[in-house]
C-alpha cells in the first residue's frame, strides 16, 4: 500500500502516463523517458532558444522576404511591406492571414513565453485568474502556423521562374524560418511541471 498526495502526481510529457513525483530525477514507468533532466537549469534552455528566436526575428522584418524580378528590374518586399501591398490591392483576407501568421502570432508567442518563463520564477500572476496551462497549450497550437509565409515564398519561388518574370526568396525567409524554428524549440523546452509547482507555491 502506498499513500501519496494527489499533488505529487505528474504527467509524462512523452507518453502522458501518470507518475509519482519522486523528486530530482524521474523516469517514466511506462516509456522510460526521463521527466526531469535538469534540476538547476530549468528555464534557462527555454530562455536561450527564445532569445535566439527574437534576435532572428529582427532581420526577418528588415530584409526583403520576396524579390520580384520583372524584365531585369528587381524589387524586394519585406513582410510588413507585402501585407500593406496586398491590402492596397484589395486582397483583404490574404493580407489578414499573412499579417496574423507572420506578425501577430510570433509576437504573441514571444510575449506568452516571456510571461510564462518569468511567472514560474517570480511571484507574478499568482491570483490564478490566468490559466497558464491553457496559455501554454495555446502557444503549442498556434505556433507552427507562422510557417505559412515561408511556405508561400517557397511555393511562389518554385512556381514563377519564367524568362521575364521571376520570384526569388529573400534573406528574410532564412531569418524568419529560423525564428519560427527556435520559438518552437523554446516552447518544447519549457517544462510544464513548473507551472504546477509554482501554483502551489
Amino acid at each position, binding site marked *: 500500500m502506498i499513500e501519496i498526495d494527489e499533488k505529487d502526481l505528474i504527467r509524462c510529457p512523452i*507518453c502522458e502516463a501518470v507518475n509519482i513525483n519522486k523528486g530530482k530525477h524521474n523516469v517514466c514507468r511506462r516509456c522510460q523517458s526521463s521527466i526531469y533532466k535538469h534540476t538547476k537549469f530549468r528555464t534557462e534552455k527555454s530562455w536561450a532558444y527564445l532569445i535566439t528566436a527574437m534576435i532572428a526575428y529582427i532581420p526577418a522584418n528588415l530584409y526583403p522576404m520576396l524579390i520580384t524580378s520583372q524584365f531585369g528590374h528587381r524589387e524586394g518586399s519585406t513582410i510588413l511591406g507585402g501585407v500593406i501591398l496586398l491590402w492596397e490591392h484589395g486582397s483583404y483576407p490574404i493580407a489578414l492571414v499573412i499579417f496574423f501568421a507572420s506578425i501577430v502570432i510570433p509576437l504573441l508567442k514571444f510575449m506568452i513565453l516571456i510571461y510564462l518563463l518569468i511567472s514560474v520564477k517570480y511571484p507574478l500572476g499568482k491570483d490564478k485568474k490566468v490559466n497558464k496551462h491553457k496559455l501554454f497549450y495555446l502557444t503549442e497550437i498556434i505556433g507552427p502556423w507562422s510557417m505559412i509565409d515561408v511556405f508561400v515564398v517557397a511555393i511562389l519561388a518554385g512556381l514563377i521562374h519564367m524568362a521575364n518574370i521571376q520570384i526569388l526568396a529573400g534573406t528574410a525567409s532564412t531569418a524568419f524560418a529560423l525564428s519560427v524554428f527556435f520559438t*518552437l524549440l523554446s516552447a518544447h523546452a519549457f517544462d510544464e511541471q513548473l507551472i504546477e509547482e509554482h501554483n502551489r507555491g
Partner: protein
Amino acid sequence: MKLRNEEELDKLVICHKCYTIHQEAPIKDGTKALCSHCGSVLYRYDSKLANNGLALSITALIFLVLANIFPIVMIDILGNESYITLTKTFLMLFDSGFFIVGFIVMFLIFVFPFMITFLYMLIFALLYFKIGKNLSKDILVLISHLEPWSMAEIFLVSILVALVKLIGYAQIHMGVSFWALIAYVMLDIYITRTIKLSEIWMLRNRIYK
C-alpha cells in the same frame, strides 16, 4: 489518495489542457470521456482502434505518395507554363542557395510526414498482430517526439494563400497531387489529432498484459 501498487496509476488520467486529475472509468464502445473541468476530450474507447488505425494509415501513406509524384498546381502566365510538385518546392530553394530554409521546409513537409505516417502504420500493424512489445514502445516514443514537427496541413493552407496571390496574373489549374494532398491532410489530422497517443498507449497496455 491510497494505491495498492504503482500499476494502479494506470487508472488515472491527467487532462492535457488544464492538468486536472481524473480517475479512468470504463466507457461504452465508440464513446469518449470528457474532462470535468474544461470539457476537452480525455480519451475515447474504440474496440477496433488497431483495425481502423491500420486501414487509415495505409490509405494516408498511399495518398502521401500520390501527393509527391504528380504536380500540385500548374499555372499559365501569358503563354508561359509552369508547374510545381511538393519536392520541387524545396529543391528550388536549394538551387537558389537557400540551404537553411530548404532543409527546414524539406523536413517539415516531406521527411517528417513520411516518417510519421509510416510509423503510425507500423505501430497499428504491431498492435493488430499483437507482436513486438518493446518495439511498439520505442515507436510510440519516437512518434511523440516527431509529431509537433509535421506541417502538411500548414503547407496546404500556404498553397491556397499562394494561389489567391496569383489570381489575376495567371491561369491556375489544380493538379492531381493537390487533391491527394487534401485527402492526406484530412486523414493525417484524424490519425494524429483525433486518435490520441494516450489511447494507443492504453490499447498497448490492454494487449500486452
